[in-house]
């Protein structure tokens, strides 16, 4: 009845109780043929950079890479909508044989003539790495000719995993920032690793500004070239999605002397801690007082509003399969705040220490998986009797087929999950699915 687990995959699946003595295998390449849920290097780089609203994002490669990433994420903009377009050199057979560099150079010329953006990213996909286009040369040539920034992001899909793409994106951002190194310090905070999904960057920014902490720039939710250029003048970086941005934070510390801390705006408790920490490090006594006020007031209010949800959700069993370990940890804790136990938790790209934390957080029988495939998810969802799965777009239909509720924690969502209002939205979303009448008939 239950699907077998491939021999090669067994080390990546653990009961929490066993994980302590026999740590889970993670960070490895996906097993060929196992139907991994992971994406590629290009994907990692693209998701980090694409929210920069007025940059020109050119996908140098065949049409698929561009078509499947066109405006698929809910990053919002308060300014330009340029980033919501898809630009691709649309390489075809002829280009593969004769090279695509000329086509790219012509495209960049045209883009400069028509739009003259301050910043162009050129993403190199799988075949560009193989056919040997000298993209760096095209970019350097364009920079000399036009005086703007044209940054190559060499992200062939086969050259690693999504996390390698994050790192490449960080390096590309740094390349853009370096010429602005000399900016005078003006104080304030950069928010790193928030992509303004459903306006989440705005929520975080509002909290910080409300307590008197100016935000200099945001990486990369609702970022513009102009706002990013000011980043070196900040006095503190706070890093929300650690997986994608710690590398850049470390580089910015070295290059610009900006210290950084990690932060989390998922859940009532973490949100409060993160606001107060920022105020502690940068703020006056007045700012700290306001941070204490705001977090106390908001957490009391939010907890009050969460009560009716808890009454409806306590005792239900949650399953989690998301991209990064950090998000998984905060989800386990958020479910716990709602009185729900997590019976399955897995990630695409979690790291050993994150898995260790997960092991401590959940009960001994909870199953922990790294880079799980649909067959494994199916098996353990059924075996552990999960009531709801939290995950991305690809996992949703599977949950539904198994008669299990689903909470969308992907990049396409239209509801914010960060901050106090996000904590409420999360409970609302979980309740909306888990307590729907439809399951009675489906499982009947």
């Amino acid at each position: 009845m239950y699907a077998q687990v491939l021999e090669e995959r067994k080390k990546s699946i653990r009961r929490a109780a066993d994980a302590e003595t026999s740590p889970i295998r993670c960070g490895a390449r996906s097993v060929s043929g196992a139907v991994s849920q992971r994406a590629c290097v290009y994907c990692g780089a693209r998701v980090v950079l694409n929210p920069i609203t007025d940059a020109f994002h050119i996908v140098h490669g065949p049409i698929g890479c561009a078509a499947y990433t066109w405006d698929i994420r809910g990053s919002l903009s308060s300014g330009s909508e340029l980033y919501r377009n898809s630009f691709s050199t649309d390489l075809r057979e002829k280009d593969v044989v004769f090279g695509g560099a000329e086509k790219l150079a012509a495209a960049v010329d045209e883009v400069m003539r028509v739009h003259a953006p301050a910043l162009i990213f050129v993403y190199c996909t799988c075949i560009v790495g193989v056919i040997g286009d000298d993209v760096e040369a095209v970019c350097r040539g364009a920079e000399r000719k036009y005086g703007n920034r044209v940054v190559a992001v060499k992200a062939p899909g086969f050259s690693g995993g999504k996390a390698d793409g994050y790192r490449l994106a960080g390096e590309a951002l740094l390349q853009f920032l370096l010429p602005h190194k000399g900016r005078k310090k003006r104080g304030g905070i950069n928010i790193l690793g928030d992509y303004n999904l459903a306006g989440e960057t705005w929520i975080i920014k509002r909290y910080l500004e409300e307590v008197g902490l100016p935000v200099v720039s945001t990486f990369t939710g609702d970022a513009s070239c102009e706002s990013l250029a000011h980043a070196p003048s900040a006095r503190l970086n706070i890093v929300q999605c650690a997986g994608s941005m710690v590398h850049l934070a470390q580089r910015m510390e070295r290059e610009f002397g900006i210290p950084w801390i990690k932060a989390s705006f998922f859940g009532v408790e973490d949100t409060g801690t993160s606001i107060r920490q920022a105020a502690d490090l940068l703020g006056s006594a007045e700012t700290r007082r306001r941070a204490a006020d705001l977090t106390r007031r908001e957490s009391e209010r939010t907890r009050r509003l969460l009560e009716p949800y808890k009454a409806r959700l306590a005792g239900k069993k949650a399953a989690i399969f998301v991209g990064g370990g950090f998000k998984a940890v905060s989800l386990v804790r958020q479910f716990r705040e709602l009185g729900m136990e997590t019976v399955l938790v897995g990630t695409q790209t979690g790291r050993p220490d994150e898995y260790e934390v997960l092991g401590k957080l959940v009960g001994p029988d909870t199953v922990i998986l790294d880079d799980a495939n649909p067959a494994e998810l199916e098996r353990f969802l059924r075996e552990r009797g999960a009531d709801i799965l939290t995950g991305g777009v690809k996992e949703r239909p599977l949950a539904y087929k198994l008669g299990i509720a689903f909470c969308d924690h992907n990049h396409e969502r239209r509801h914010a999950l960060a901050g106090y209002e996000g904590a409420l939205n999360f409970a609302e979303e979980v309740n909306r699915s888990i307590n729907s009448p439809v399951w009675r008939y489906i499982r009947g």
Partner: protein
Amino acid sequence: MSSRIVNLNVNPCKMCMPLGVVNAFYGVAGCICLLHGSQGCSTYIRRHMATHYNEPVDIASSSLTEEGTVFGGEGNLIRGLDNLIALYHPEVVAVATTCLAETIGEDVRAIVRDYLAGRPDCRVKIITVNSAGYSGTRYEGWFRALRALLEQTDADASAHAGVNVVTGPLSPADTRALKRLLRGTGLDFTLLPDISDNLDGGCGAPYSRLPAGGTPLAAIARMAGARATLEAATFVPEEASPGRLLEEKFGVPLFRLNMPVGLRDTDAFLAALEELGGSIPAEEREERARYLDAMVDAHKHVALGRAAVFGEPDLVYGLTRLCCENGLVPVVAATGADCPALKAVLEEEIRPVAENLMLQRFSVLNFADFDDIEAAVAANGANLLIGSSDGRRAAHRRNIPLVRCAFPVHDHLGGQRIRVLGYAGAMRLLDEFSNALISNLEASFRKTIRDRCFGGREGSAAAGKAAGSNRARSATHPCFSEAAGHSFARIHLPVAPDCNITCNYCVRAFDCPNESRPGVTSRVLTPDEALERFLRVRESMPSLRVAGIAGPGDALANFEATAETLRLIRREDPEVTFCLSTNGLLLPLHAARLAELSVSHVTITINAVDPVVGARIYSQAAYMGMRFRGEAAAAMLLSNQLAGLKMLTDLGVVCKVNIVLIKGVNDTHVEDVVRKVKTLGASIANIMQMIPVRGSAFEHMPMVDNKTHEALRGRCESILPQMRHCRQCRADAVGLLGEDQSIRLREAAPAALSSVPAAPGVESPVKVAVASRSGVVVDQHFGFAEQFYIYESDGLSARLLEARRVAGKNAGCGGCGNRPLPEGPEEVEAGGGKIVRALEAVADCGVVVAMRIGDSPSRQLAQKGISVFSTYDSIDKAVKDAVLRCRGAAAADSRFL
């Protein structure tokens, strides 16, 4: 996009070939696909299909790596096949190549041959397809898959009476409808492919990972012996046609037809079935009659339509013809694929219909992206988009309805249930087209006609209506109706601290809670706090009718806060009357927005209508980044006040004009002011005596006596109604006029952290070092910490002082290498060095908190007098607990969890 770019594909109207291959193989029984390439291809295609079909889509990948790319991916592919077969137990595996595999020259056919040769017991049929993403689109991929399937299946050419039906990309629901029709004809048929169950399965029965529906391999084998093949695809090239292959290889006669979309092509399809000996079910005849009836019902509506049809060649052809036969002019027909043949046939199709309606312009676009399509939509005046949900951005931008009837549909449900085929599909489409056009017309015709009649002075009728309801609200506004002043309460929300002019009678200090005069408040609120105060007051004060913003500065000089406050309150309370007061300097900028925010009442303070007089009252004005003084300031202010007042009253907002009566300055000028503002539509004037404020320029000015004040009001009464019940309220006033409750209702002032008195006996704060990765939870080993969060705490509160890096950590993260950081404990350098550095990093602390710590470092810390705690908890709480415990127990090595 404002300008066009030709060297780039801007917003693609196509998908890549491997997607088409996988899509078609979903119509083969017991089949699962493996893409030979990097991991991203399968994941992206899965996501693309799963959101359209709302079904699980499993596609394996050989997960090619750098090594595989350089030295060949054979090993990956073989391992992948083994694993996939073990996991899914499929009957058929389709191995499709991707851009990468083709570019590095993988010979998948040979690899698979060797694979099978080495596994004589393997009963799985493995089909290989060469499908570089760059060599075609989903459309070509679909047919390439079918052709490979027919080529590589062991054919059973023994003749039988059955008929093959081969289709291009169809929805599962259309496939089901086609199957029903074929069954009804009594013909023995094989439909290839059949995605009806696999991409639109039911719920309830046990879920099967392996797609169980679809055309069985045995049936595919028998296609070689069929009597005929019907291929319902117009534009597939001969060399890619699956039917042609059957004809050339096995002599099965091929009949190529259009997809049965619309009346003519469905008729032709049924005729072909009849010719092959099928009997057409009576329901089809009835359905046809009903479609004819629907065409007549719809014809006048759809004749107003100017459609833009986009998508894959066959579907664009079918939909365009359907539009044409109904008199709905396709002013744009576009495909993203490279299909030059489409242009001539469609132009011929569209021209007569366009000429009937005297339309000159229509465009047939080949190899188009959405940038091309949108430009043609604009140029040709399309008012209806027909195609996939990829057209939604153009639809939003141009405010044109989009009928979603093609793959992919990502923003609506039901992609798997799209109906296009046959009379029933046509009927459904026609209704959707008509209704989209009707809804648009219904939503716009009143305004269009009114604008035409009133010469574009749009809004005047709406403003008239707004004025009526706004005036009605005055009855419950204590400042606009004296009677209301006794029974209805208002709240002033002090959210606007800044001011942009300097009046000589004002001091901009707002921290004195004991004065009651305009411009005074004890504490400025944020919009959220204002909302909270409003909600609290409303609870305890049922007579509350008005929420106003009266400073303490100028409501419009703080427009963001003002607007946000109003927006938040309106969300909670649709009824309450909005009111605000302003000096009017920024009114022309914000008047329209105020009306949008449903502000019904505005008070403008206008003390003079002569700049010479004004210059004695105002010392300066800051406007648009410039600072004006003297008469220039007064003139600037005045012109904006008057223009703004007019704009507001035109919008139907009820306006009150406040005039501060200043003896010897404007006391003889007030009547002029009242007269002027009346002509601009002000409803009421409020002449107030100036209150000399200590510290202001007019500190020593005498007040006008009550008698003179009253007499002046009497004279002005004949010009404009006068407010005589003004109490000159505070900017945070609450309640009935004259009964300010603001002090009682103010929040208890939150105790400042810094002012928390030290509890007797509590010692000075101690430094605490916390090992944390996440920064919000104690979740790190002491020895592996890359940084410590250094807190200072007295046990009651905790303050983060710094995030302190441990020396020597992060070395080699300079971004020069390609490998990720050493993240896991096992990768971190071994030996005592790291512990020494960690100990150094916390040397100045009194307490260390970590998720875990080894015995040796724990002892070493204890020797230095540093207390150690291990816990997993939120960072704040852990720090405070540790300090309290440390002091309570005074036992340096006590632990808690």
